[in-house]
C-alpha cells in the first residue's frame, strides 16, 4: 500500500495555534471580502459579468487546441518565440537552455504561480543562475526562504515587524524599520539595480489573446513591466489554459479578476505584450519567449467535469472567502495553490496519494463557488475528487483510489444498510435512543466532537411516534 501523506492536518493545527498569523489573515481577508463586495453593488451586473467571464473561458477551452495553434502562429508572426513543455522538468530545462544560449547569469522575475509549480527558482540556483523575485511580496518570502501563502498576496502571513527584521538582516545597509513605506522604498532601491543589471526578465501571463498574439499581464507595482521592458530578454511562462479567443475579451476578465481579487476596478498596469523591440525602437527586450506548460492540465482537460477547474483566472477570491483558509493561511496546504482552488489543483497535479488530504479541508460551505468570478463549481469538484480518491473512475486522476479505506467502507456499508431500509432505520434509531446517551464522550468521533462542544442528547421519542400520536397522517 502506498504511503499516504497526512501533513495537511499537522500543518493546519500548527497554524491554528499561531494567534498572530490568525489575526493577520482574518484582518486582511475580511478587508478583501469587504472591498470585493463594494465593487459589486449591483447583483445583476455581477451575475451578468460572471456569466460572460465563464462563457469566454468555456469557449476558449472548447476550442483549446485550435486556439493554442492560432496563438502560436500569431506570436511567431509578432516575433515572439514559442516553446512547449509537457512537464515541470521539461519547462525548467527549456528555460535554462534559453538562458544559457544567451549567456545569462541572472534573471529578474515578475509574479508567476506557474513558476512556483516548477520550483523554478530552486532549479535555476542549482544551475548557477540567480533568480530574483521582484514582486514585493515574492521578494519578501524569497528573502525569508519561504513559499507563498496566498496567490495574490504571497507574503500576507508576515507582519511588518517580521519584514523589518528580515530586511535589516538581509539587505546591506538597511536599518530596522516597521514602516511599510520605508520598507517598500528599501525594496525599490535594491530591485531597481537588479532590474538594470539582470540579463533576463521573466513573467507569468494572465491572459494570452489568440487573435492578436498578445500576452496580457496585470500588476500594481510595475515590477511586471520592469521585468518585461528593461532586460534585453523576456521569458514568459503560462499554463495551456491561459489562452482566450480575442483581445477584446480581456476587458470583462480583467474587471472580474481585479474586482474579485483585491476590490479594485483594475490593476495599476495592464501590460499587453505583442512583440519584442523592433528595428528603430529604443527599448524593450530584444527577444521574447513564451513557454507553454502542460504539467497535468491535459489530464484535467480530459474529464469534462474536472475541466471546469481550468477556467480559473487565479484571482484568489475563493481563498479570501474560505473559512478554512482564513484560519490556517496558505502554507498548511503544502503545495503550490492554497485554498479551494488548491484543493482542486494540488491533488490533480501532485497525485491524490501525495496531496489528497487537502480534499477534506472544506466544510463544503460553498462560499468559494458563490464568489468565483468564472463560476467554477469548486465544491462539486472537491466532492468529485473525494470520490476519485476512494472509488476512481478510469484513470481520471493521478493516484485515484489511493485513499481507499477498508474501515470506511465498512462504516458506510453499515450506514447504508440502516438508512436505505425503513425497517432497519426504525430499529436502529430505536436502539440509538435507548443506549446512545450512554456512550462515553471518549469514543472516537465523539471525542473530537466534544473537544469544544457538549455531547448531543438523543431524544427519547421518535418524531414518527410523536406525529402518529398527534394525528399526522403517515402514507
Amino acid at each position: 500500500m502506498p504511503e499516504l501523506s497526512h501533513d495537511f492536518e499537522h500543518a493546519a493545527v500548527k497554524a491554528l495555534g499561531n494567534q498572530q498569523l490568525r489575526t493577520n489573515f482574518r484582518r486582511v481577508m475580511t478587508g478583501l471580502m469587504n472591498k470585493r463586495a463594494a465593487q459589486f453593488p449591483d447583483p445583476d451586473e455581477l451575475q451578468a459579468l460572471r456569466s460572460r467571464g465563464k462563457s469566454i473561458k468555456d469557449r476558449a477551452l472548447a476550442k483549446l487546441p485550435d486556439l493554442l495553434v492560432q496563438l502560436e502562429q500569431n506570436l511567431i508572426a509578432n516575433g515572439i518565440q514559442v516553446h512547449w513543455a509537457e512537464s515541470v522538468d521539461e519547462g525548467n530545462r527549456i528555460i535554462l537552455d534559453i538562458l544559457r544560449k544567451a549567456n545569462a547569469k541572472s534573471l529578474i522575475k515578475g509574479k508567476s504561480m506557474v513558476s512556483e509549480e516548477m520550483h523554478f527558482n530552486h532549479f535555476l540556483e542549482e544551475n548557477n543562475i540567480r533568480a530574483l523575485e521582484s514582486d514585493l511580496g515574492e521578494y519578501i518570502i524569497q528573502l525569508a526562504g519561504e513559499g507563498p501563502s496566498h496567490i495574490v498576496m504571497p507574503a500576507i502571513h508576515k507582519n511588518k515587524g517580521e519584514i523589518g527584521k528580515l530586511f535589516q538582516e538581509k539587505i546591506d545597509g538597511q536599518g530596522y524599520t516597521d514602516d511599510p513605506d520605508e520598507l517598500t522604498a528599501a525594496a525599490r532601491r535594491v530591485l531597481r539595480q537588479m532590474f538594470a543589471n539582470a540579463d533576463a526578465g521573466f513573467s507569468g501571463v494572465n491572459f494570452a489573446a489568440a487573435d492578436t498574439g498578445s500576452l496580457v499581464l496585470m500588476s500594481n507595482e510595475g515590477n511586471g513591466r520592469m521585468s518585461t521592458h528593461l532586460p534585453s530578454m523576456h521569458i514568459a511562462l503560462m499554463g495551456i489554459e491561459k489562452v482566450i479567443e480575442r483581445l477584446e475579451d480581456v476587458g470583462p476578465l480583467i474587471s472580474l479578476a481585479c474586482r474579485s481579487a483585491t476590490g479594485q476596478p483594475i490593476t495599476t498596469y495592464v501590460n499587453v505584450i505583442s512583440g519584442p523591440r523592433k528595428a528603430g525602437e529604443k527599448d524593450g527586450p530584444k527577444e521574447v519567449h513564451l513557454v507553454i506548460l502542460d504539467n497535468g492540465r491535459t489530464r484535467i482537460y480530459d474529464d469534462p467535469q474536472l475541466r471546469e477547474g481550468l477556467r480559473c483566472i487565479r484571482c484568489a477570491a475563493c481563498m479570501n472567502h474560505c473559512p478554512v483558509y482564513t484560519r490556517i493561511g496558505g502554507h498548511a496546504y503544502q503545495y503550490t495553490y492554497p485554498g479551494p482552488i488548491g484543493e482542486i489543483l494540488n491533488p490533480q497535479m501532485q497525485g491524490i496519494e501525495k496531496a489528497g488530504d487537502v480534499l477534506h479541508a472544506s466544510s463544503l460551505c460553498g462560499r468559494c463557488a458563490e464568489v468565483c468570478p468564472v463560476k467554477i463549481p469548486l465544491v462539486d469538484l472537491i466532492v468529485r475528487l473525494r470520490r476519485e480518491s476512494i472509488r476512481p473512475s478510469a484513470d481520471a486522476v493521478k493516484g485515484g483510489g489511493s485513499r481507499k479505506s477498508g474501515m470506511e467502507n465498512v462504516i458506510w456499508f453499515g450506514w447504508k444498510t440502516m438508512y436505505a431500509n425503513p425497517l432497519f432505520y426504525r430499529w436502529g434509531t430505536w436502539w440509538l435512543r435507548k443506549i446512545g446517551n450512554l456512550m462515553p464522550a471518549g469514543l472516537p468521533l465523539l471525542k473530537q466532537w466534544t473537544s469544544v462542544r457538549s455531547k448531543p442528547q438523543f431524544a427519547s421519542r421518535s418524531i414518527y411516534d410523536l406525529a402518529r400520536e398527534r394525528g399526522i397522517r403517515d402514507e
Partner: protein
Amino acid sequence: MSNARSAILERLRKAPKKPVPDLAPWSPYKTTTEQPLDRFRRLMGAVKGEIIDTKRADLAETLRKVLADKQAKNLLYAPNTEIGRTIDAAWATEPGPQLVAYDKPMEELKSLMINDIDAGITSTMGAIADTGSLIVWPSAEEPRLMSLVPPIHIAVLEASKMYDSFSEAVGKLGWNKKPPGNTLLISGPSKTADIEGILCFGVHGPKQLVIILITD
C-alpha cells in the same frame, strides 16, 4: 516541431468534445448619468492620480508649474513628438528644468534613467471611463520606459479622447488589428499592499502620476 507540442495538442484533440457556448449576454460599461470624464476623474483620484486641466496653448506653462511643484530637476522627454516639439520651443525662449531626450537606445541611457531622472512625460491614446485608465502606446519615438522608470510620470491626455470601456477602445483604436509591441493601461501610480495589506505607493513604477488634461 517539438514532441511536447504535438503530444499536448494530440491529448487535447482526443479529449471529449464539449459544445462551444455562445458568449453570455453582457454589455460593456456605458456612461449614463455620470459623464465619462467625471467618472475618469473620480476613479483616477481614488488611486491618487492627479489631474490638472489646461488649454492646448498652455501645455508648456502647465508642465513648468508641475515640474516646479514637484521640484523635478530634470525631465525625460521624447523630442520627436508634438509634445516634445512644444517643450523644446518653450524651453528655447525660457529654459526650465534640464531636458533629457530619449533619443538613443535604452542601453546608453539606462543608468542615467534608473538613477537620476526625476520625471518623464508621455502622450496617451486616450482614456477609459469604466476603470479610470489611461491608454498608453509606447512607440519608437516615445519608448516604453518613459512612463515607467522615472518617479514621476506626467501624461498628457486630450479630454476629447474618452472611451466608455476597454471594449470600445479596442474597436475604435483598432487595437485588435496589429497592435504595437507594447500597449498599456495605466490606472494611477505604482502601488502595493503586500505588507499587511497596507497601501503604499511607488514600488517599482512611478510614485506619482500627473495627468495634464487638455480640455479644448
